[in-house]
């Protein structure tokens, strides 16, 4: 059974992410009164980009090519550290939560360095914003992880994330609600969604993530888009453990339940993107400070 779960875990991690982007786009189209692109359009896009050639700027060095690859490798490894649904993570050890958070740091280091490698001012702006906003979202993430560690009494992500399911009591309800709000904001910021960043914007001056990848093309761009969707899946799965701590205890029911939940989360993100406008760039730190405060208060409430 563990082997089956392992295979399913890897399959979901590798195959599902682009579908989430499809669901988000479809939801936004539905809100806008359009038919929208097919649900599987992100897969077609990735396949098309993989067949295309690359244009490499003469300014760039090997860092430019390494950026997307390191990003993809780190988010996939992070995906192996978290449990999906009620099933244990393939890799679990004491203190893996720190590796989980720092893998995103490694990805950020190389994404932003690859952006600076082009020497373009737009990409400089994008990477400056990315690293700046991370300074607030990272402590928020750690506060949330500390709440989960305290609830479950463990420092292993598998046990910690299943804490809300297994060790739920009335005392931990309020902290969990607070950190789920904080984690949702962190999710939106880290995956560059409205209200922090607009993935569909067309003005380089106002972009974060899209500004950093202006010069990537062909297979490298497809790796970047794919890695971004995997990141959405990974962080979304973490959030699901907090906001939807249900399981049936049966393998053939729990996997479909997870699929419904994660696609539902994608739809929620689509709704948020449809009903909100993007914040002004100088207001984003306030939103993230809010997330930090939510998670911090959650922790204080728990240890009072």
């Amino acid at each position: 059974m563990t082997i089956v779960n392992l295979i399913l875990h890897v399959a979901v991690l590798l195959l599902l992410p682009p579908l989430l982007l499809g669901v988000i786009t479809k939801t936004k189209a539905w809100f806008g009164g359009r038919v929208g692109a097919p649900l599987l359009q992100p897969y077609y896009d990735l396949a098309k980009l993989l067949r295309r050639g690359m244009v490499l700027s003469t300014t760039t060095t090997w860092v430019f090519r390494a950026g997307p690859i390191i990003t993809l490798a780190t988010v996939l490894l992070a995906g192996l550290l978290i449990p999906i649904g009620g099933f244990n993570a393939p890799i679990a050890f004491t203190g893996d939560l720190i590796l989980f958070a720092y893998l995103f740091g490694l990805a950020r280091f190389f994404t932003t360095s690859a952006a600076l490698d082009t020497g373009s001012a737009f990409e400089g702006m994008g990477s400056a914003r990315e690293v700046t906003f991370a300074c607030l979202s990272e402590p928020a993430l750690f506060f949330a992880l500390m709440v989960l560690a305290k609830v479950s009494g463990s420092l292993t992500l598998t046990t910690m994330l299943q804490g809300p399911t297994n060790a739920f009591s009335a005392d931990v309800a309020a902290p969990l609600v607070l950190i789920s709000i904080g984690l949702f904001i962190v999710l939106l910021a880290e995956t560059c969604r409205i209200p922090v960043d607009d993935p569909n914007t067309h003005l380089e001056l106002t972009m974060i993530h899209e500004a950093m990848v202006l010069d990537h093309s062909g297979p490298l761009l497809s790796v970047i888009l794919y890695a971004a969707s995997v990141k959405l899946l990974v962080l979304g799965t973490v959030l699901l453990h907090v906001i939807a701590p249900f399981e049936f205890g049966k393998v053939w029911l729990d996997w479909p339940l997870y699929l419904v939940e994660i696609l539902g989360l994608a739809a929620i993100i689509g709704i948020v993107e449809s009903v909100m406008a993007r914040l002004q760039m100088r207001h984003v730190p306030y939103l993230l400070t809010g997330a930090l405060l939510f998670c911090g208060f959650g922790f204080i409430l728990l240890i009072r």
Partner: protein
Amino acid sequence: MFLDLTILAIVLAAASGLPGLFLARSSVRGERIAAWLMAGGALTGLVCAAVTVLGGGQPTAFFPWPAAGNAVVGLDALSAFFLVPVFLVGGLGPLYGLGYWPQRLHTSNGRKLRLFWGLLVAGMALLVISRHAMAFLLGWEIMALSAFFLVATEDHREESRRASWVYLVATHVGTLTLFGLFALWRHTTGSYALEPVGQDTLSLGTLHLLFFLALLGFGLKAGVMPLHFWLPGAHASAPCHVSAMLSGVVLKMGIYGLVRWLSLLPSPPAAWGSIILALGAVSGLLGVVFAIGQHDLKRLLAYHSVENIGIILLGLGVAMLGRSSGHPEWVALGLAGGLLHVWNHSFFKSLLFFCAGAVVHGAHTRQIDRMGGMAKAMPWTAACFLVGAVAICGLPPLNGFVSEWFVYLGLLKTALSGGTAAMVGVPVLAMVGALAVACFVKVYGTVFLGEPRTRAAGHAREAPLSMRLPMLALGACCALIGLAPVLVGPVLDATTACWLADAGAETVRLGHIAPLGVISVLAFSLTACVAGVMVFLGRPALASRAGPTWDCGYARPTGRMQYTASSFAQTIVLFFNRVLQPHGRRPRVVGLFPPPAHLHSHVDDAVLDRVLLPAGHRIEGWFNWFHRFQRGLTQHYVFYILLTLLALLCTLFPFKAHLAQWFAR
């Protein structure tokens, strides 16, 4: 035997600069001899340290010292642990100096630099192995004074002279505190020996006094946040390999002093751990925030030392909390994290300063905003700097992650079982990590990536082999500890024993509480995967068209239109406006064709520029009246001497007898 060999290594190091003094200024033999002697001493010392750490402590030895009983030296795991960075960086420095500070270009100060380099290494090694307060102070002063002469290597420059004076004042305030500390120790325990004392030898008041004196004296050397003021200037104006030594190793002597000293004091109160944790959090956060505000590459690296000392202190704080509350697990994790970070920081910070030396050499400036695109001209230096940058941010798969991971684990375990002080540590450390990433992306991106911003940066050349070898060696150390942390497990187990003795429990093995093997496997497979894909992508079949960077259709982009380091950091600097208080000159742009203008911004040091110097000027103002007596005229001073002599003569006058005679009449 290994203790004798260590003393031989110290003698070799101390003597390394001497032969050069007897050779002609133009002769290049002196620097070669110094490098060989230093390399020999360093290898001997490293072998001794390795044998001691892995094979157990060496018996102590005595040297007769008429003034203060017998001077004792000994080599235990803790001493050996700190000998490793001393001899590693100490041995690599002269090799680096062959290319960076060659005698034929620096005839006036090259010999001085090598002499004091050798003495610095010898002084540090001596203080690390001494078990006697006087021998410790001897080593401490040799270290402090030779560091002063090294900072003042270029004493024809005003900046160097000023920085070295500030350093000298700071270090002597520290030494004065240590005098007080050891005098009190001698007074209460009755001996100069640095041996653990019994439970009831010291009263609580004395314990507190000893702790705070040690914190002040050693904290000044380590550069803990309010006491760091001497550090940025000294690190920035010294030659780069001296900065590497100061930042990588000399600061760690403060940490060594603290660790050794706290191991002597029995049953520490819980407040000490909280104080160390708070100092660590402040140093970590403010160190990196001030680093982000800097425009000078070496000042920026210097502030990062403050940050890393903060991380080390967070580890020590957890360990102290564990000692006072009887949790050997916290002690093992916290102390292992702190001590491993001592090694790691000395490796990657020396590496970064070595790389900075090569860059500054090539670009002829220390201003980050005047560099750019140097990775093309200096690929080796760029790759080494990247290794150092990833390591100092604490990112996997390099060594910085391993030590920060221990500190995190210690903090989390403490926080979960009710250690309130440790709760602040985790988010602070997370924020420090994110800010460090921001800072080093800024540095690496602006210095090495993109296009050159000035002509000098465009004409930079790769550093010679003698400079690249030390960088590669240190980079290899970073990668080795990062990829195979299992190797350092036994070393840390042996070293943390010095604090675990009184935690009152069976031996805690680091490998049992922190799965080092998994980290090794994951780090290795991540690196292998990325390397494999990179090789695959590097195939010519996949390489495709080359073109210019997308610039929104602008026709004539120049290197100066790139995003600068100052702009990159601006949002964070504004966010910490209250602490950093950036100031500068902002030109007003008027009209359709404004004239050329300059923008200038600067972040002052919080303590030196905002507290100490104004306070100094204020005190100077109070004593203005003294100028009336102090005019610089020789005649006045002769007059003062006459007055003094007269006053002294008056004491000879038999007033008493006279008065008695007077009243008797």
